[in-house]
C-alpha cells in the first residue's frame, strides 16, 4: 500500500479519509515522507523567503551544470573520434567532469536538506505519525555523502589520469627524432 496524498490547494485528501488543513500556500514543494515502511509524497506550502529562493535557484544550477557536463563530454568525444585521444584539453575536461559528477549532486541534496530542515521532523495527521525521510546515505546535519556519485567521480578521475599519462607519453613520442 502506498500512501498517496493528493494536494488540492489547501486541503490534502488521502484514500482513508485523511484530511489535512495547512496555512495559505505561497510556494509549493514536494518532499518525501514515510509512514512506517510506506512511502508517499506530501504537498506542503512554505512561506519562507530563503526556502523559496533555494528551491528556485537549485534546479537552475543543476540544469546549468548538466548542460556544461554534456558540453564537456561532447568536446571529449569529438577529440577522441578525431584521433586526438591524449590532448591535454581532454585531461582538463575529464577532470572538470569528475568534479561536476561529485559536487553537483551533493550541492543539490545539501540544498534540499537545508530546505527540509525547516520542516518538522514528524507530522501527526489525524492520529497517524508521518516521519520525514533523510536525503543522502550518510548525513551529518545538512551535510551529506553520496557514495555512488563519489565512486563514479573517482572513476572519471582515473580516466583523466590515464589521459594525462597518455598525453605525456604522446608528447615524448612526438619529440623523439
Amino acid at each position: 500500500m502506498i500512501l498517496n496524498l493528493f494536494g488540492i490547494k489547501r486541503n490534502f485528501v488521502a484514500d482513508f479519509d485523511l484530511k489535512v488543513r495547512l496555512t495559505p500556500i505561497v510556494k509549493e514543494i514536494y518532499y518525501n515522507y514515510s509512514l512506517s515502511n510506506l512511502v508517499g509524497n506530501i504537498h506542503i506550502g512554505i512561506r519562507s523567503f530563503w526556502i523559496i529562493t533555494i528551491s528556485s535557484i537549485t534546479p537552475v544550477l543543476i540544469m546549468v551544470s548538466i548542460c556544461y557536463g554534456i558540453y564537456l563530454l561532447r568536446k571529449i568525444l569529438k577529440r577522441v573520434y578525431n584521433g586526438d585521444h591524449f590532448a591535454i584539453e581532454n585531461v582538463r575536461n575529464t577532470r572538470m567532469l569528475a568534479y561536476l559528477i561529485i559536487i553537483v549532486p551533493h550541492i543539490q541534496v545539501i540544498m534540499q536538506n537545508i530546505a527540509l530542515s525547516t520542516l518538522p521532523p514528524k507530522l501527526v495527521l489525524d492520529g497517524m505519525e508521518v516521519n520525514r525521510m533523510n536525503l543522502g546515505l550518510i548525513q551529518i546535519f545538512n551535510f551529506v555523502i553520496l557514495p555512488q556519485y563519489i565512486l563514479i567521480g573517482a572513476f572519471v578521475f582515473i580516466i583523466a589520469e590515464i589521459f594525462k599519462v597518455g598525453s605525456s607519453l604522446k608528447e615524448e613520442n612526438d619529440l623523439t627524432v
Partner: protein
Amino acid sequence: MIRINLDVMMAKRKMSLTELAEKVGITMANLSVLKTEKARAIRFSTLEAICKALDCQPGDILEYIPNGEK
C-alpha cells in the same frame, strides 16, 4: 644539458636543412625540432644517419654542458 651542434656541423659541410633532411630521411619539422633543442630523445638510427650524412662522430653533434653554464 645536452647541446646540439647540428647547425655548426651543417655550416662546416655547407649543407642546408632541406638537403640534410633528404639525406637522413626524416622530415624538416623533425630536423628543426632537433636543431632547436626541443627534442626529448634521439633514436640511434637517426643519429647514425645524421653522422653518415655529415661525415662526423656523434660527439661532433652532441655536447654535454654542465648545469648553469651556457
